[in-house]
């Protein structure tokens, strides 16, 4: 979901009757508030919790009524059965693992209306349970976060939060990681996030970068991979806030020859040593991937090597796997540029995770932000 600045949120009921971005963010906020309202065993405790975290004037704008706390976990299976009998068999669908299994928005609006008219712990948990099937990822993650303390089925909620940490949407990732840290601080996914955030320190204690883009053939002057370019901006804002954004970014000639790539690999080796950036995750496009593989053979350590539409020329270009963490390849079907290059269309090495998108011919699709944002392709989850 693109960044949306909400200046005038709708009231809770109105939010659940709308499907625009502002309304969806408000729905997520309402669910998190419900989870918070259910905390505490006494009214005094509840008041203390709410005063600390939720200013009453904000709650008044959203028109969220007070709610008595819940004593313990509720039986989520019973909640599902009750929802199924009320709304029909469609609600018995499995918990979504992607963006594809969702319920009609009218169901959420009706459950929100129930709760806001006569707020009870049951009406709140009905809404939370239902919103796990919401079409918007941020609402699903918010529902899982809010419901985690009250549901008898925590494992499935943890899965939704873990999936949220891989979202293309920075806000979803942050929300999911924060919630996961609260309910399951030892979760392995959090360790992964911590590792990737703290690996390579930049030179002289300045900004810390752990990822960088490397362009491909003829793309030295292209804007997409440079600061302010569309793909650079997308990766920086939505995927990797630690993406290299310094002035001394690495670039190579973009030439189409073994000599040009060898020279580029030497330059990358010099660059990472000069700026103390060994161990970066590299997002490479086309023969930028060949260059990175060559560089690993020359001594460059790479965290994760992401090969976007990389022509396969093994064994001429293959990574030194002892210097590379993981290798992920993402490509389209029958790439016309790779056809012209006479390279292979697929890696067949067991240490390279190959992902083929249901897109044909277009070599540039893999650095197109709208392709990355398309939830049907699940590209961020491939990394």
């Amino acid at each position, binding site marked *: 979901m693109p960044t949306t600045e909400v200046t005038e949120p709708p009231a809770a009921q109105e939010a659940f009757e709308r499907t625009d971005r502002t309304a969806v963010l408000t729905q997520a906020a309402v669910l998190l508030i419900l989870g918070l309202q259910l905390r505490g065993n006494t009214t005094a405790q509840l008041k203390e919790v709410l005063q600390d975290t939720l200013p009453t004037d904000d709650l008044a704008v959203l028109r969220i009524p007070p709610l008595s706390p819940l004593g313990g976990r509720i039986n989520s299976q019973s909640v599902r059965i009750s929802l199924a009998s009320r709304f029909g068999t469609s609600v018995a669908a499995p918990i979504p693992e992607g963006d594809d299994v969702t319920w009609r928005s009218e169901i959420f609006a009706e459950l929100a209306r129930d709760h806001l008219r006569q707020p009870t712990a049951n009406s709140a948990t009905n809404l939370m349970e239902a919103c796990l099937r919401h079409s918007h990822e941020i609402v699903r993650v918010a529902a899982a976060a809010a419901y985690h303390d009250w549901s008898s089925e925590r494992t499935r909620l943890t899965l939704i939060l873990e999936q949220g940490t891989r979202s293309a949407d920075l806000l979803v990732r942050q929300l999911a990681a924060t919630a996961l840290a609260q309910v399951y601080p030892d979760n392995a996914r959090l360790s992964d996030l911590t590792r990737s955030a703290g690996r390579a320190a930049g030179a002289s204690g300045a900004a810390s970068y752990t990822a960088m883009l490397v362009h491909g053939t003829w793309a*030295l*002057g292209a804007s997409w991979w440079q600061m302010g370019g569309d793909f650079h901006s997308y990766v920086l804002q939505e995927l990797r806030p630690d993406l290299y954004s310094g002035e001394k970014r690495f670039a190579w*000639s973009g030439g*189409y*020859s073994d000599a*040009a790539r060898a020279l580029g690999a030497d330059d990358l080796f010099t660059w990472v040593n000069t700026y103390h950036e060994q161990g970066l995750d590299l997002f490479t496009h086309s023969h930028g991937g060949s260059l990175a593989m060559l560089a690993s053979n020359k001594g460059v350590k790479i965290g994760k090597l992401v090969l976007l539409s990389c022509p396969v020329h093994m064994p001429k270009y293959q990574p030194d796997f002892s210097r590379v963490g993981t290798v992920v390849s993402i490509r389209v079907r029958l790439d*016309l*540029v790779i056809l012209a290059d006479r390279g292979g269309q697929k890696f067949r090495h067991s240490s390279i995770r190959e992902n083929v998108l249901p897109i044909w011919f277009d*070599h540039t699709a893999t650095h197109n932000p709208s392709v990355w944002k398309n939830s049907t392709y699940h590209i961020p989850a491939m990394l």
Partner: protein
Amino acid sequence: MLYKMWILGAIGLFLCTAVWRATRLRFLGRPIIKALGSRNENLRTIAGIFIVRAGRLAEPLLEESLHKRENLPIVLTILGDVGDKRVESEIRGFSGHEDPKVAEAARQALRILAMQR
């Protein structure tokens, strides 16, 4: 529609290159050189690959483009890739070009040429 158009353009490049390389007729190479200035990155890349693969056959066309100052950054890089040393001094002249993209491409082309010696 645009999506389909670039695919047709790419197919045209494949065909045109095959005929150009078979007949060695210079005018058949011009559309491929012209495609270096395409707004579509796929077409630019495919054209560039075909021109480098054509090697010496492409040199006169590249030099023609260089003299006309057409698609300078990419033409300079390709001249480095094909190893056309006849224009080395001319490329050197571009290394101080006012357009930083052209200057950078010229410097890189000179490095590639030097490495190919």
